[in-house]
């Protein structure tokens, strides 16, 4: 800050400072990376500390500091440890400093516990992120984790401060190595704009002042970076116009205004707009303000609009550009960050706050959760504290929204527990789901385990595949008789029978065969849900379709048995008479004749029907089932 100007011409100083812009950024890193020292130095060097605070810092540095005679900037930010002991929830601490051109709001998140929840909270309002790493350690799992969360929250600009350069002799080689490491990872993540800056927070190198110890570095200092990085709100002015209506202003019968903060784009009197989700179009009348009407309102401004027509508008509606309206949907794919001790459970209903709307929201299937360190997708039925998952959400009513990647204000949401009123999760809306794939799964009181338990058995599927006439149905019959005699609850699904009923609308084209196979798999799945042992005998000629059927079941629940009889022998034996018909042109698309059969590459069991008779084949299958403990 220019103290010289303050003394000489306070009016000029005031005029300049009233025109400053505002940048919000988040710092990521642990105390060990020197984060507190770095923030402390930014505050100190931008002269945001008062004399009494500096005096306290000097005293504390002598008493508690780790830097000998030097100031220990980390002490400016202390207190978190004490608070943790007191059991106070610390999520994000906000610090402020200012230069002649910008005011900065720093979201400082404690590094260790609760990092996901805290970082997501801090990142949600940040224009850019400052990720710290220790030059000696390079890119660690923690760095990747921080970068991923920053990327997830839609922060487009990332500065990586490679700190403690003094401890690696200000080595360019070391810095370039880290730059390569990080570049590879950023590419994998899809992070386009990142800048690595070699610094020593302790000594101040490349923080505000350019370092004399690293003449090889030609990039910006940390402060130069912060002074020039793009501010999100400016970018959002070019987005389509969005105004989530926050409050309807109705002081008298002759004024009705719609108040809210512009979430995207710009608005001016005369603009055509549409009120969503209802979809009524109208024209903007005035942009009303205390100082007098405005020519326009832009993203980030809190405005009040009047509309030309008397149409129904209430809190929660979105006024949007008529030529670029926000999509409206009731079902979404969304990424959820869970923030409560009590886990997120599928099928439970929460309240979702999105824009200015609050609606009931039910989480349908959790598609997967993410390992934040490896970015691996893991199957999950619940999300625990600090876990991130991709889920389907169904709302109690349709809402206007934008995918989060396009607009953070109309695409971000929080989930609220209906009983405690606590904020239990935060999320990012993805695409709207409109198709039948999203008929929400009905949660059932009695589940498959319960049904199977009553029958004292484990449900599973024996899937017999092979050419027509190979002996599938015969083996299936023999097998079912044995199981039945043993007191097992079974059902036999035979391809021929299915085609007389459920699939009688299908022909024998490849597409219809695939569909028949899909139906067979789904029916088998329902039957196992009923607790039954399913014996399925289907030609099922295509590998991919059999794999689709397999994917409906848990590991070990789907036993693929290849009833193997070479085509010549099948034709020769022709137990079904189909091959004879095919010879005379009575059947087309017969597998093994003019339609292909893809034999399994790794079946659970292969029955060589050139050697085995039907009973022996059934014996083999039973032996396998015992071997796998499926009948215990």
């Amino acid at each position, binding site marked *: 800050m220019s103290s010289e100007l303050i003394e000489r011409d306070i*009016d000029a*100083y005031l005029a300049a400072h009233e025109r*400053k812009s505002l940048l919000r950024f988040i710092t990521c890193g642990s105390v060990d990376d020197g984060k507190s020292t770095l923030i402390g130095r930014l505050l100190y060097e931008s002269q945001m500390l008062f004399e009494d605070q500096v005096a306290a810092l000097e005293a504390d540095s002598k008493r508690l500091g780790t830097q000998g005679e030097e100031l220990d900037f980390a002490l400016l930010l202390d207190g978190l440890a004490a608070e943790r002991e007191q059991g106070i929830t610390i999520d994000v601490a906000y610090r402020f400093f200012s230069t002649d051109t910008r*005011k900065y709001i720093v979201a400082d998140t404690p590094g260790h516990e609760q990092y996901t929840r805290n970082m997501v909270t801090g990142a949600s309002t940040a224009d850019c992120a400052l990720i710290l790493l220790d030059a000696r350690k390079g890119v660690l799992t923690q760095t990747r984790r921080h970068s991923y969360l920053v990327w997830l929250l839609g922060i487009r600009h990332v500065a990586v401060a490679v700190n403690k350069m003094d401890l690696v002799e200000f080595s360019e080689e070391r810095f370039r190595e880290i730059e390569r490491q990080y570049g590879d990872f950023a590419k994998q993540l899809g992070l386009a704009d990142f800048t690595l800056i070699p610094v020593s927070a302790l000594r101040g190198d490349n923080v505000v002042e350019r370092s004399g110890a690293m003449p090889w570095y030609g990039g910006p200092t940390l402060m130069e970076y912060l002074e020039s990085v793009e501010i999100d709100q400016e970018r959002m002015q070019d987005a389509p116009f969005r105004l989530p209506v926050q*409050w309807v202003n109705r002081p008298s019968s002759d004024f009705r205004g719609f108040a809210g903060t512009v979430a995207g784009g710009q608005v001016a009197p005369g603009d055509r707009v549409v009120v969503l989700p209802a979809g009524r179009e109208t024209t903007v009348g005035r942009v009303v303000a205390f100082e007098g009407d405005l020519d326009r309102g832009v993203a980030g*401004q809190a405005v009040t609009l009047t509309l030309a027509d008397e149409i129904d508008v209430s809190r929660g509606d979105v006024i949007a550009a008529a030529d670029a309206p926000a999509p409206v949907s009731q079902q979404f794919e969304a990424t959820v960050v869970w923030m409560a001790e009590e886990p997120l459970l599928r099928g439970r209903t929460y309240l979702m706050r999105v824009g200015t709307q609050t609606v009931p929201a039910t989480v349908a299937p959790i598609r997967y959760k993410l390992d934040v360190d490896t970015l691996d997708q893991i199957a999950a039925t619940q999300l625990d504290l600090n876990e991130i998952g991709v889920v389907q959400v169904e709302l109690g009513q349709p809402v206007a929204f934008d995918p989060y990647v396009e607009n953070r204000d109309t695409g971000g949401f929080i989930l609220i527990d209906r009983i405690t*009123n606590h904020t239990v999760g935060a999320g990012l809306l993805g695409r709207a789901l409109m198709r039948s794939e999203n008929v929400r799964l009905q949660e059932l009181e009695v589940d498959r385990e319960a049904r199977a338990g009553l029958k004292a058995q484990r449900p599973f599927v024996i899937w017999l595949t092979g050419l027509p006439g190979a002996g599938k149905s015969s083996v299936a019959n023999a097998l079912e008789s044995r199981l039945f005699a043993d007191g097992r609850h079974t059902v036999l699904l035979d391809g021929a029978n299915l085609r007389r009923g459920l699939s009688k609308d299908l022909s024998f084209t490849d597409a219809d065969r695939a569909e028949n196979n899909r139906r067979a798999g789904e029916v088998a799945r329902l039957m196992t849900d009923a607790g039954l042992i399913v014996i399925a005998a289907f030609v099922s000629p295509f590998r991919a379709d059999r794999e689709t059927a397999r994917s409906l079941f848990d590991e070990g629940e789907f036993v693929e048995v290849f009833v193997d009889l070479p085509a010549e022998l099948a034709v020769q034996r022709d137990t079904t008479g189909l091959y004879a018909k095919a010879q005379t042109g009575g059947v087309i698309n017969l597998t093994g004749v003019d339609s292909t059969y893809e034999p399994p590459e790794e079946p659970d069991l292969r029955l060589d029907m050139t050697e085995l008779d039907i009973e022996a084949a059934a014996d083999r299958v039973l032996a396998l089932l015992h071997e796998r403990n499926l009948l215990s």
Partner: protein
Amino acid sequence: MTLTHLERLEAEAIDIMREVVAVAENPVMLYSIGKDSSVMLRLAEKAFWPAPPPFPFLHVDTTWKFQDMYAFRKRMAEEHGLDLLVHVNEEGVARGINPFDSGSVVHTDVMKTEALKQALDKYGFDAAFGGARRDEEKSRAKERIFSFRTAQHRWDPKNQRPELWRLYNARHRRGESIRVFPLSNWTELDVWLYIHREEIPIVPLYFAAERPVVDRDGTWIMVDDDRMPLEPGEEPQLKRVRFRTLGCYPLSGAIESEADTLPRIIQEMLLARTSERQGRVIDYDEAASMEKKKVEGYF
């Protein structure tokens, strides 16, 4: 078009105020007469324009404010047509609580903290706006914008909610209340710059003038009325002083100053570089006491 930092801070505060009005049943704005309250009043006028602010203003009066403050309060209420409520803890008055004999801690506790709880209960307010800022003290840096209180007005540290984007969750059960701080992200300099830009009226005590003061433990205390106990033979001195924060006059330290215009006040603040809270006698009584006061319900 780049919005300036003041425009963005203003938009954020307005957004917060509208949000509370949309969801709370019975909101109130705490009005302390100080410069932060002046800014809050202006923001409230802007947020709901052309409607008047759709809530009353509450002054918790300890009966020990400066005379200039009472005059200013009267003027503001008249000029802005405020629905102004004044609450005094009459029980405290009857007990003779005062800053001199009771000490600043007891006085503040009874006449301010207790009085505030009484008023909130009396009127059944479920949301109260306050002008506190995160830059005021180290422990406030992590304070939420929406702060939840139990039916007993206790701040439950484990029951505070993460705040993401602009999605505030103000839901609360009947009996519970929220304190809301629209100026959370403002600094002292921002407040002054905004007052300057918007030409917002403030109490004259912020400007330097000749005032009668006495020295109390190295702090200049103004003799604002005849309740100020003087040592035998002690005569108040006339000094050119002003106040950086205003509260109960016996608890507000004056600084010697020549700054009699807004630019000069800001200039002096920037050059003097001591933090605002230094003038608040209350902070010295108990170290790290803010956290404790907050748990008890101090604003």
